[in-house]
């Protein structure tokens, strides 16, 4: 394919040819091209379809403000929808597809929407799909979603990596046009640490797209010279392809660096993109300005472009967007386009200057511009054939980042645009076109001045070197927002298909504030966030309401400046790396056995350990339970939180944080305790041992290890700051195993060095022991209801201890059990855990009301006595088993009286946890039942409407196994 529209000049590498495909057709371009410039060079203007009316569209711009030329880039897992062709850097083998069209871009069946446009005016959806209500979810929404919308996602996993990075600097300069370059140069020469970031792949900003001179040479060459100097300064970091997406608090800016988007596949070891967090002491916004169009009938045809973009394609990329071009402008900058194009040898057939009273009133050409109709000041109309039209309605300073902290831009009459207002982000200065200084001289001068101001503020000095000579042309703009003519549609926001008519309709329906206008018409929404359309929309609104633009006001901007891929925000936090994984000391042993694991917070715990021949999890779990209750079982309980508490006030401190009393626990003993929240709900439970006069070891649940420790620090520092008490989390320091079952003691006697007979180490005993000379801790506590101990050794010996116990205790046939068997045994014993400790339950609900001591002040004690929390018929923990032992129970089922209708009013409570008990030979459950303590022995139903289960159950004591506790004292 020949590049039929390629002309001389431009910053492209003509010696190299890049091949690419658009909608399956092959084309060629050069390094330095964007997808849009390359397509235009090949004579392709049609690149997309509009959102609502499916109108054929070409690029409006040559930058990140692009509303129309959105394509799907790449294929498979790398496919990315809604990519702006105007900023997609061309690479060899690039594949792009147009979107929002069917069956093809040239013929789109949904183009029928365009003919039905009368129906699709602003508010159409709000008004039409009001009723019947039930139709919305099933009928209207799916249809609307299919018809509207932009690109599609591949649904395949993204194979690329994304990184997060952190940078610190004295001065962040946002944008590398003349203002940004001058600012970076001034600060860089002064020795400040500077980061200069630009979204383009070539720094220089507008200088790359212009023909005028800076400092006696071509602007682009001056920029290249500055960049060459900056690249030699070790204190300056140049970041191309890096978009500063937002200003956050305290000088922190977010930036996305597209490290590999200009390559077919990222280089080995390189991420696709990096999300930078830039900590800057000061920042300068030098983001330039964006040209805006003028609304006139059929102003959205492929071939109609912003005048400055038409000029950029010619100057920077050596591309003529058309053979015969016209320019429609309301300011002097439009005339520059005409002059530049002429100089490039293009045929400029008309310059329509609204300041002379001339206007474009209509255009023709379905898939590409064919002609424009012009009305002159005398009212005469004529139609001329053109295939490209440059439109300039003036330039809007890119104030976006400056308004991220809600600073409202203010109207500037001279340039007819909004400039940054007061109260921008602290430490952010604005320079150049972004500040309303639209000439090159103004940009250079302001860039230098703001850099000096920023450095002076930081106590550094920067020199004001003499500025290079540059044009300083006045703006000379006479606002023209939309051409008054006829009844056709004149587009304001091309991406959302918002026309002048829509704004009129919104006004007619009394949506007169700009914020309402935006929501009602969708003006300024979607991927371009109204970069070209917003100001025109509110200017039209101002005109309709008879108010000035400053009176009408403007919406403000939020981060991000341009769309950010979800993968970039996620960085490496995805898949198994979404969060850190913590492994237990027995993990490697368990992996060797082929164990199954379960995620518990960040921990990976052994869920069950299958033996050969076991094909179903229940077989393994039942075996583990039965073997433990018959002889001995070992379970890794390292994940439980452990906190060492020391100090002369340790006991008094625990009395404050536990609902029950711990200062009276004798040295060498444990006690089970309940921690309440101040609102009286149970926060956590666990056993705490007194290891010495002023030394306790507290345990928490796995889930609350971090939050209990945080709470304890709060109590210690904020509530009782003078208590002599010190805390340290030792969860990671000790490997801890539960050894449970009738032979638990016999097994442990084989490994510990001390006498642990019942007399020497009675039930609830605790102490420091040794294991083959190694320091260890032993607690005689039980979660399973069996004679049980928990033994702890320094973490690095955990694996060895487990293997030693299994080897030395082999005669007792020990089993290692996982969390499932643990759950079975604790439910058989009626011990509360996750399902019961749900943050909405009191000690009384759990049947532990007597544990809350009223003889001392403790967190939650007072509010646990509130009316409503001490109700006679409140929820009480009960045990549940089905009347028919073969029947199934499901956790979450609700209690209903026999014969009661399954409605909320009859709800008696719910099943919190359920397991199959191999001892009772049936499903068993725990549950919270209203007045449950008085219903033991009665029958109810456990109803699960979702699963279609309605099971008659017997309410029993939660202590379903060995209720007298004879086994654990054995």
């Amino acid at each position, binding site marked *: 394919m020949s590049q039929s529209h390629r002309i001389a000049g431009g910053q492209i590498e003509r010696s190299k040819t890049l091949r690419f495909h658009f909608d399956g057709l092959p084309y060629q371009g050069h390094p330095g091209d964007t997808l849009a410039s390359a397509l235009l060079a090949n004579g392709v203007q049609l690149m997309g379809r509009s959102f609502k009316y499916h109108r054929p569209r070409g690029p409006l711009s040559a930058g990140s403000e692009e509303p129309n030329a959105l394509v799907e880039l790449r294929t498979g897992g790398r496919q990315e929808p809604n990519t702006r062709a105007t900023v997609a850097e061309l690479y060899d083998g690039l594949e792009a597809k147009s979107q929002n069209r069917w069956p093809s871009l040239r013929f789109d069946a949904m183009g029928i929407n365009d003919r039905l446009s009368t129906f699709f005016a602003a508010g159409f959806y709000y008004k039409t799909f009001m009723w019947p209500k039930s139709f919305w979810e099933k009928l209207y929404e799916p249809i609307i979603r299919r018809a509207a919308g932009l690109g599609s996602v591949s649904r395949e996993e993204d194979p690329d990596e994304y990184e997060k990075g952190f940078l610190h600097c004295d001065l962040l300069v946002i944008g590398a046009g003349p203002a940004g370059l001058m600012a970076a140069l001034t600060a860089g020469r002064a020795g400040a640490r500077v980061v200069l970031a630009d979204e383009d792949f070539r720094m220089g900003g507008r200088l790359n797209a212009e023909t005028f001179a800076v400092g006696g040479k071509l602007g682009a060459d001056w920029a290249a010279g500055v960049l060459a100097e900056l690249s030699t300064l070790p204190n300056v970091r140049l970041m191309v392809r890096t978009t500063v997406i937002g200003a*956050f*608090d*305290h*000088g*922190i800016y977010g930036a996305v660096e597209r490290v590999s988007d200009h390559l077919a596949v990222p280089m080995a070891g390189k991420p696709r993109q990096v999300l930078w967090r830039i*900590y800057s002491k000061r920042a300068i916004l030098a983001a330039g300005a964006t040209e805006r169009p003028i609304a006139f009938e059929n102003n959205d045809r492929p071939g109609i472009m912003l005048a400055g973009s038409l000029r950029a394609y010619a100057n920077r990329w050596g591309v003529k967007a058309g053979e015969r071009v016209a320019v429609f402008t309301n300011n002097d900058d439009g005339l520059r386009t005409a002059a530049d194009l002429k100089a490039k040898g293009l045929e400029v057939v008309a310059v329509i200057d609204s300041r002379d009273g001339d206007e474009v009133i209509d255009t023709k050409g379905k898939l590409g511009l064919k002609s424009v109709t012009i009305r002159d000041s005398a009212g005469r109309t004529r139609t001329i054939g053109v295939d490209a039209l440059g439109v300039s309605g003036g330039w809007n300073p890119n104030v976006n980042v400056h308004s991220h*902290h809600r600073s409202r831009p203010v109207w500037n009459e001279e340039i007819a645009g909004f400039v940054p207002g007061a109260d921008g982000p*602290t430490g952010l200065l604005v320079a150049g076109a972004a500040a309303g200084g639209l000439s090159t001289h103004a940009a250079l001068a302001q860039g230098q001045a703001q850099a000096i101001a920023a450095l002076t503020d930081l106590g550094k000095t920067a020199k004001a070197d003499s500025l290079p000579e540059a044009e300083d042309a006045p703006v000379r703009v006479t606002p023209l927002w939309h051409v008054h003519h006829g009844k056709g549609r004149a587009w304001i926001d091309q991406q959302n298909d918002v026309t002048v008519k829509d704004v009129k309709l919104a006004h007619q329906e009394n949506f007169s504030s700009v914020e309402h206008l935006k929501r009602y018409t969708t003006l300024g929404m979607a991927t371009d966030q109204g970069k070209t359309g917003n100001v025109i929309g509110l200017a039209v609104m101002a005109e309709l309401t008879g108010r000035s633009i400053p009176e009408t006001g403007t919406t403000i901007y939020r981060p991000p400046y341009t769309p950010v891929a979800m993968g970039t925000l996620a960085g490496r936090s995805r898949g198994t790396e979404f969060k850190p994984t913590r492994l237990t000391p027995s993990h490697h042993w368990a992996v060797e056995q082929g164990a199954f694991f379960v995620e518990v917070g960040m921990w990976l715990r052994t869920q069950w350990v299958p033996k050969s021949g076991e094909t179903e999890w229940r077989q393994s779990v039942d075996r583990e339970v039965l073997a433990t209750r018959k002889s001995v079982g070992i379970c890794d309980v390292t994940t439980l939180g452990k906190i060492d508490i020391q100090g002369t*006030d340790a006991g*008094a401190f625990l009395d404050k944080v536990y609902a029950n009393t711990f200062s009276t626990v004798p040295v060498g003993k444990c006690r089970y305790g309940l921690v309440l929240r*101040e*609102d009286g709900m149970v926060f956590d439970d666990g056993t705490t041992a007194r290891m010495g006069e002023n030394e306790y070891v507290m345990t928490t649940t796995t889930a609350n290890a*971090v939050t209990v420790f*945080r709470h304890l*620090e*709060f109590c210690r*520092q*904020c*509530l*009782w*700051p*003078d*208590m002599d008490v010190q805390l340290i989390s030792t969860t990671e320091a000790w490997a801890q195993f539960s050894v449970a079952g009738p032979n638990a003691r016999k097994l442990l006697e084989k490994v510990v060095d001390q006498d642990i007979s019942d007399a020497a180490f009675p039930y609830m005993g605790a102490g420091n022991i040794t294991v083959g000379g190694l320091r260890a801790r032993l607690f005689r506590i039980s979660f399973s209801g069996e004679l049980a101990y928990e033994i702890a050794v320094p973490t690095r010996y955990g694996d060895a201890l487990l293997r030693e116990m299994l080897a030395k205790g082999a005669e007792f046939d020990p089993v290692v059990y996982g969390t499932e068997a643990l759950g079975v045994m604790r439910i058989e014993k009626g011990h509360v855990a996750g399902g019961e400790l749900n943050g909405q339950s009191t000690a009384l609900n759990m049947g532990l009301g007597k544990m809350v001591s009223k003889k*001392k*002040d*403790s967190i939650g*004690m*007072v*509010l646990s*006595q*509130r009316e409503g929390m001490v109700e006679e018929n409140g929820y009480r923990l009960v045990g549940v088993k089905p009347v028919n032992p073969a029947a199934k129970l499901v956790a979450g089922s609700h209690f209903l009286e026999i014969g009661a209708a399954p409605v909320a009013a009859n709800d008696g409570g719910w099943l919190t946890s359920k397991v199959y008990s191999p001892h009772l030979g049936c499903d068993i459950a725990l549950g919270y039942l209203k007045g449950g303590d008085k219903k033991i022995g009665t029958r109810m139903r456990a109803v699960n409407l979702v699963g279609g289960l309605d099971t008659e159950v017997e309410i029993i004591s939660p202590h379903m196994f060995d209720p007298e506790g004879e086994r654990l004292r054995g």
Partner: protein
Amino acid sequence: MIIHHPILGPRDAQEFVYLGDESLIDRPDGMTAGIEAFHDYAYNRDNPAGAHRELWYHEQGDRSWLVVTRNTVTHEITKVELARDVARAKGRTK
């Protein structure tokens, strides 16, 4: 955000856990105050648009609880103190 820790200097807010109003330090005594006082303590907070004294915990750091005076509108931080010092200044002891 950046919090200027009185001991450790400027630290990123991501290292901290936010709790809420500094008034959580003013816990009534459970043996003398009643349910009403505790209800106010546990549930009632001012929600100012402006300066707000609030508790932050340096969990990924030295475990200090801090009282941070932050403007809820601008996020400007004007003062950072150790919560223990604030608690003592309020007369809290054991």
